[in-house]
């Protein structure tokens, strides 16, 4: 790097970022849109995430999981934005008792629409949505999820366990007319 003309170095850095990180922007947006529920906010979140990623790209090791790296930045940016807006931090374990005391979990219906699935997911407390999305949709490892959300590994596992139990409970209620669904 030393001795190389600056414009070439910047071009090379941009080319590497464009090839490695930019392709993940679309998936990042989908996650941001789910989390923010507002298009403008989601676009802001993704833009700020990608800008931060661009500034930190020299620290990214090629060959490692870029999507996990970007997800960690997105969660960090999201957390900072919430703090800046004086929003309460996401509660550690809301409805903690629910996962343990689900009295009856009806079987998950064999036929489920995408709407049923996403509706049930949306009714979960946000901390469970976070881990389920990062695990099942973004396909991050437990360690990567722990890093992204800055929580212990054990907390990732317990939230996944409880979150999925709640999700099955919500979906089981889909097949039962007149039953009240749990609320997030």
């Amino acid at each position, binding site marked *: *790097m*030393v001795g190389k003309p*600056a*414009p070439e*170095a*910047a*071009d090379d*850095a*941009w080319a590497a*970022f*464009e090839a490695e990180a*930019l392709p993940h*922007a*679309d998936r990042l*947006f*989908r996650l941001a*849109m*789910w989390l923010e529920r507002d*298009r403008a906010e989601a*676009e802001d979140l*993704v*833009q700020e995430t*990608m*800008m931060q990623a*661009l500034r930190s790209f020299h*620290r990214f*090791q090629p060959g*490692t999981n870029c999507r996990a*790296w970007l997800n960690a930045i997105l969660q960090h940016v999201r957390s*900072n934005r919430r703090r800046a807006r004086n929003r309460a931090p996401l509660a550690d374990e809301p409805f903690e008792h629910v996962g343990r005391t689900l009295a009856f979990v009806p079987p*998950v219906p064999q036929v*489920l629409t*995408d*709407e049923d*699935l*996403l509706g049930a*997911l949306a009714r979960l407390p946000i901390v469970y949505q976070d881990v*389920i*999305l990062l*695990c*099942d*949709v973004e396909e991050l*490892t*437990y*360690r*990567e999820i*722990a*890093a992204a959300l*800055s*929580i*212990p*590994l054990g907390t990732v*596992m317990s939230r*996944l*366990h409880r979150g*999925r139990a709640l*999700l*099955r409970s919500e*979906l089981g209620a889909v097949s039962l007319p007149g039953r009240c669904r749990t609320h997030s």
Partner: protein
Amino acid sequence: MDCRDVRDLADSFLAEELMTETNHEMLRHLEGCHACRRELAERRSLREGVRRAFAGAASLDARPEFAAVLKARLRRAALDVPARRSIRHRGWWALAAALLLAATIGLVLRARDWTAMVTLAHAAVGDHRNCALQFRLTEKPIPLDEAAKRYGVVYRVLERLPPDDVRTAAGLAHVLERHACVYKGQRFAHVVLEYRGARVSMLVADSSSHGPSAGEGTIDAPGPIDGLSLVSFRTSGHVVLFTGEIAMGDLRVLADAVALPLRRGLSGI
């Protein structure tokens, strides 16, 4: 392994997060249990369903022009002339700082012992970057209790010290992870904390080969190492290093909060 164990481990099994031996036990059970196979199939189907529904939801699609706008903004930021100039200037400042640091080290340090300490400091920073931030160590970290059996009782002490939540004058530090790991041949007990909005590492190494510093318990702050703040102190034959991308003052506050209980815990080892 019984059906209850299988239900408890099913999600980790599907996520390929189980250790090899446990995986084999699961497979052995599934071979003979139709009910558990059905349960697993349902859970797998549910995971795939969530993934498919999320990928296909039109409400989550970006505006067609968003990708192009984002790319243009990022490209301008990446190739911006002031940014390039600052990169050049940053390079010169880094070189000047490195020369100044080298000159200072050359004046102040006693050759071999202090060189060893600087090497340890660089290893600590490298471990923080490669283990706590990037998870890309060549050798996989191991749990502290296993490290205690193999390498010594100090690792046992660090299973409980510092406590999971550390109150400091600058705010709360929360332990995210504890393990033993190796970076470039240097073995550390590694505690990763969330502190002041950043990830910080506390790394403990045996001090027998890392030269003198200011003395037992005194907190050294040798200055930034490879762009990260670093402070350290010695106690009971060990060097305790703290590093992270936060202000040096905040790192010292954390070290202050941890030093006394850690010294007590490590005394006598």
